[in-house]
């Protein structure tokens, strides 16, 4: 998967969890949780959806890597580029 397709995958997951949020203007540098109303359980669901859909494990100590869209893509790229 490319950076673009990983981004699309993340957007799709967030959209399933919080369908009423407008995700079109996300600033990729800023923390997701400052821009979208996500609580810690929503966040955990993102991790679980990644596991379900792409069989990617994100260990708890790596959760900080998923704070902005760019850092999330950076973190997931090595795990997802071969998919």
């Amino acid at each position, binding site marked *: 998967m490319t950076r673009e397709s990983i981004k699309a995958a993340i957007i799709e997951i967030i959209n399933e969890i919080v*369908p009423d949020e407008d995700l079109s203007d996300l600033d990729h540098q800023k923390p997701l949780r400052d821009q979208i109303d996500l609580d810690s359980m929503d966040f955990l669901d993102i991790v679980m959806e990644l596991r*379900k859909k792409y069989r990617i494990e994100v260990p708890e100590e790596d959760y900080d890597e998923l704070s902005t869209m760019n850092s999330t893509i950076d973190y997931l790229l090595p795990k997802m580029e071969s998919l």
Partner: protein
Amino acid sequence: MSSNWCALLKYDVIIIGAGLSGLAAGIRLAHFGKKTLIMERHYRVGGLNSFYRAGGYDLDVGLHAVTNFNSKGLKSAPLSRLMRRLRIKEDDLELCPQKESRITFPNVSLNFNNDIRFLTQQIEESFPDQRDGFIRLIDNIIRMSKDGFLQKADSGRKFLKRFITDPYLLEMIICPLMFYGNAREHDMDHDFVALMFFSLFIEGLSRPQKGIRAILDLLLKRYEDSGGELQTQSEVVKIKLKDGSVSGVITGSDELIECDAVLSSAGIDETYNICREVGNNKLITPGVMSFAESIYILDKKPLELSIDHSIIFYNRSTTFKYQKPLEPINVDSGVICMPGNFTYNEPQTKEEIRVTHIANPNYWIDADQGEYTNSKMLWHDRSLDAVSEIMPSFRENIVYRDMFTPKTIKRFTGHTSGVVYGAPDKIRDGMTSVNNLYIIGTDQGFVGIVGAMIGGVEVVNRQLLV
């Protein structure tokens, strides 16, 4: 235990009971790829909150109102968070708020709606010196709601007394909280008082536009679309252990179904009874609080009879007795629900009134058929006599009536003694002495249908998905 059973099937998780907690837990498990089976002994889902057809009418049982109405549409509200966990749109529940409800005691009535400021005003009018304490109580409970109401076990009455110094007002406030969810006689746990106060008075009450059936259909569809399986008319008679862990369940038709974990909404006591190996590890005090409910279909809308409240909680004496009564039914207090008097989006033809009283489970369960039938007639009348003292009479307008008793509840839920709110001591986290056996539902102590679903989801999140 012999090993003659030949297991044909193997599941990741078996859930006992297709009530609200079992369905919610099942949705989470199935959604995240666990092979899940819900086993329900009744032919229909819903458990304590279900529906039936009798006399040509569709009737709901259990649910008077849904608590935790999210009137401001806050994403952080418990109901909103729960629906996100289930991937169900909150709007699809079609919840319609109450109009106005009432707590009525001798000489004083307090009205309330889904805006706590209105109840505060009502209190200011009848109990002027209690207003400030009541506002501090609200603030305190809102703060507690942010930490998930985790408090050490303590008396709920003692907690309320810190803010409400007038004993009469205290009785009036605790009455609805107890009726809508208290498993304990006389007192209520501190955290449950706060949780119920928040759910009922601060967030408020609503009903689904199309009744409980619509919510059950929504949950069941979501569960099955996620790949979850359901077997109705299928009873678990034994939870089978191997080396101290659950290895499967034995069904009523003597089949073994293997699984890696069991979630049981049957109740703590009831679950330990089918899992004898753990029976002596914990001493369970069974609950005794059960109820009888009369369902009346009228030839007119309650509004046309000047009955305009959504729900009325009443008590005929100055102290409120929340305890198992000596007589079959205690008509000195009760809850009267007018399902038609909610603010529906589409007009409803609900010409129905439901009256709930505390009942003595032993009497109704032990009565023989003849006495049972006669007693139902007698107590319908006594209940109507009591109710007509506090609201306009609708006796002449009844075209159909039915009553369910603790015996009915026992039959449909399997709860010992037909208890509605389970055992007084709750297991919040669902953990038992067997590592892969968990309690969900009533005996987790999250009350109401919203609470039941939250409980099921939390056990799954904490114990089975991470």
